[in-house]
């Protein structure tokens, strides 16, 4: 496939040697963890240079995950959008179908990469945090596949609202520990996973689920997820011999978005839009760290955080448990600051509308996370010309969310 050369002014050469993306990123961890993350960085550099590692990764992605995922032209969604647009307006909408992956979301791409690193490093125990449970399920899946014991930390509130995923993790042999500290959600699960890690440094590998945390996690998660954008770029070129005009992806921590965006960053004609969760609205409870937060330090990196004037972290809110996090990956913070990527947000209500729109026009039940992206797509497409193309990442399927959606729509099932 054609790949623009890495230029000296490339957007794809971050982070620097210290793990910084501009002023963001870094390695803000307790001293106990420093030797570990330095080890991880060394091991990751070695793995990156080792063709056998890439081969095993790609083999598992093909035969276990089911990649490449399809690239799909959403014809009826496009028509529905055009029906409500000015004449000549209404861009074509295409989807990268990462919801068709094994385990139902993009999370598995990263878990395959990280468990191969864990094995390379001789680690014998895996821990992870999870919000909606998608990353927990993906982690439990690869642990079962490789026969490693697995402990998943999950906020007690999320355990309650994501019971099907809790049961899935247990079926896969993982131990699920409900976290009752703090607000009982994703950030508290991450705190608890860090506490476990610091106490079990010698045998334990921490599979972080998003492109955040201390260096080298944001980089390696991005690299593993970049399979999304690399495939999509090649598929676009081979299907219609052109690149899209706009990429759109939902953002919690931002791993599916950076995975789609990164391979296109040097294609300067391709614009990009990340969609945060605006919850009940940006003036009320939400999870939009870029729109409503300030730079700060949490969970190993400097990035935009929802916080008060004293630096206390605020509770995030989104109908989507997977976007319910008060921070964002540091590379997104940098891409926002330099203006290469635009960021917007969609409310719970807009996501619910988009969820139903996709169900009815395309016969696809999306997860609530990409429903935020679809909401932004519907808005943007109306402003764009008919001959323009939007490519959005359909990063997860909605089976896990049907109870939440039913409740929000006032339906009892």
């Amino acid at each position, binding site marked *: 496939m054609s790949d623009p050369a890495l230029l000296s002014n490339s957007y794809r050469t971050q982070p620097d040697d*210290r793990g910084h993306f501009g002023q963001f990123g*870094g*390695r*803000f*961890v*307790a*001293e*106990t*963890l*420093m*030797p*570990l993350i*330095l080890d991880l960085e060394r091991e990751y550099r070695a793995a990156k240079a080792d063709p056998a590692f890439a081969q095993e990764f790609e083999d598992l992605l093909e035969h276990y995950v089911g990649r490449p995922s399809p690239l799909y032209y959403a014809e009826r969604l496009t028509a529905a959008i055009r029906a409500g647009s000015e004449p000549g307006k209404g861009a074509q909408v295409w989807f990268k179908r990462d919801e068709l992956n094994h385990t139902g979301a993009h999370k598995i791409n990263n878990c395959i990469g990280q468990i191969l690193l864990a094995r390379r490093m001789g680690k014998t125990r895996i821990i992870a945090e999870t919000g909606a449970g998608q990353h927990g399920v993906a982690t439990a899946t690869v642990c079962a596949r490789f026969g490693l014991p697995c402990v998943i930390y999950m906020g007690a509130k999320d355990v309650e609202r994501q019971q099907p995923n809790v049961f899935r993790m247990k079926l896969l042999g993982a131990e699920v520990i409900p976290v009752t*500290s*703090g607000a009982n959600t994703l*950030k*508290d699960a*991450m*705190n608890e996973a*860090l*506490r476990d890690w*610091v*106490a079990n*440094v*010698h045998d334990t590998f921490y599979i972080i689920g998003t492109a955040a945390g201390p260096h080298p996690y944001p980089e390696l998660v991005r690299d593993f997820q970049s399979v999304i954008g690399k495939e999509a770029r090649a598929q676009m070129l081979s299907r219609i011999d052109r690149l899209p005009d706009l990429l759109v992806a939902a953002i919690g921590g931002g791993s599916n978005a950076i995975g789609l965006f990164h391979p296109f960053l040097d294609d300067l004609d391709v614009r990009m839009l990340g969609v945060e969760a605006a919850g009940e609205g940006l003036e009320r409870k939400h999870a939009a760290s870029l729109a409503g937060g300030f730079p*700060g*330090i*949490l*969970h*190993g990196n*400097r990035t935009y*955080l929802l*916080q008060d*004037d*004293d*630096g*206390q*972290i605020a509770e995030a809110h989104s109908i989507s448990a997977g976007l319910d996090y008060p921070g964002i990956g540091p590379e997104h913070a940098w891409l926002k600051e330099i203006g290469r990527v635009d960021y917007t947000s969609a409310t719970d209500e807009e996501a619910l509308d988009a969820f139903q729109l996709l169900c009815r026009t395309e016969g696809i039940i999306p997860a609530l996370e990409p429903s935020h992206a679809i909401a932004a797509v519907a808005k943007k497409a109306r402003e764009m010309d008919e001959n323009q193309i939007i490519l959005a990442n359909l990063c997860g399927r909605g089976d896990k969310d049907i109870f939440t959606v039913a409740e929000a729509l006032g339906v009892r099932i």
Partner: protein
Amino acid sequence: MTRLSQAFAKGHPALVAFVTAGDPGRFATGPILDALVEGGADVIELGMPFTDPMADGPAIQAANLRSLAAGTTTADILAIAMAFRERHPTVPLVLMGYANPMTRRGADWFAERAKEAGVDGVICVDIPPEEDDSLGPALRGNGIDLIRLATPTTDAERLPTVLEGASGFLYYVSVAGITGKQQAVQASIEEAVARLKAATKLPVAVGFGVRTPDQAAAIARVADGVVVGSAIVELVGQYGKDAAEPVRAYIESLASAIRAARKEMA
């Protein structure tokens, strides 16, 4: 000599006592700090509460939440420190906490206010030497030590990085884990302290999991300081605003064990 170096040159190992600021409320901390000094603490560590204390065990997590629930602000903590400095002009005071509350208004803002409040040192859990420039230069520019931490995972290859630019004292975190959970094997502490002292002239204080007078005494035989935190914070959790008296009694028991231990050695 700084207040910190004087505290480590008293002829007995220093007792370093930690308590979370504003727990259970901002007016409770002053009397507890007085009780620590009267009970024999040589260095005070004042914990800055944070919503996400990921290096702390259940006792200090709970203290953080109690303090924040009571509405403790950064301004309150600085006021507690300043009032302490007025009452105890010679006792060193170290602020301990996490990077985000310390850097929220900028490192310079924090360092200047800490200096005004009479703070001698800062321990920041999640700023390793690699990220020193986020806080270290601002503090040192205001005459405040950024205390470095060494841990069981700090091997010979890494130790020089930790010691580069270290000042005040070196805090040896004796357990790879979170605060207040387990205690380290005495032999491992002795081995580590010997290794650290061979590499630095800074005083070495040992903490994490220290609870009983016997443990404190055993550490005092080899180290320059003993840090006690979770056990004090648990007393505050148990006795609330009436914690000063039990805290004083507890600190006295540790202080006398530490002083006796060093006399045995002499």
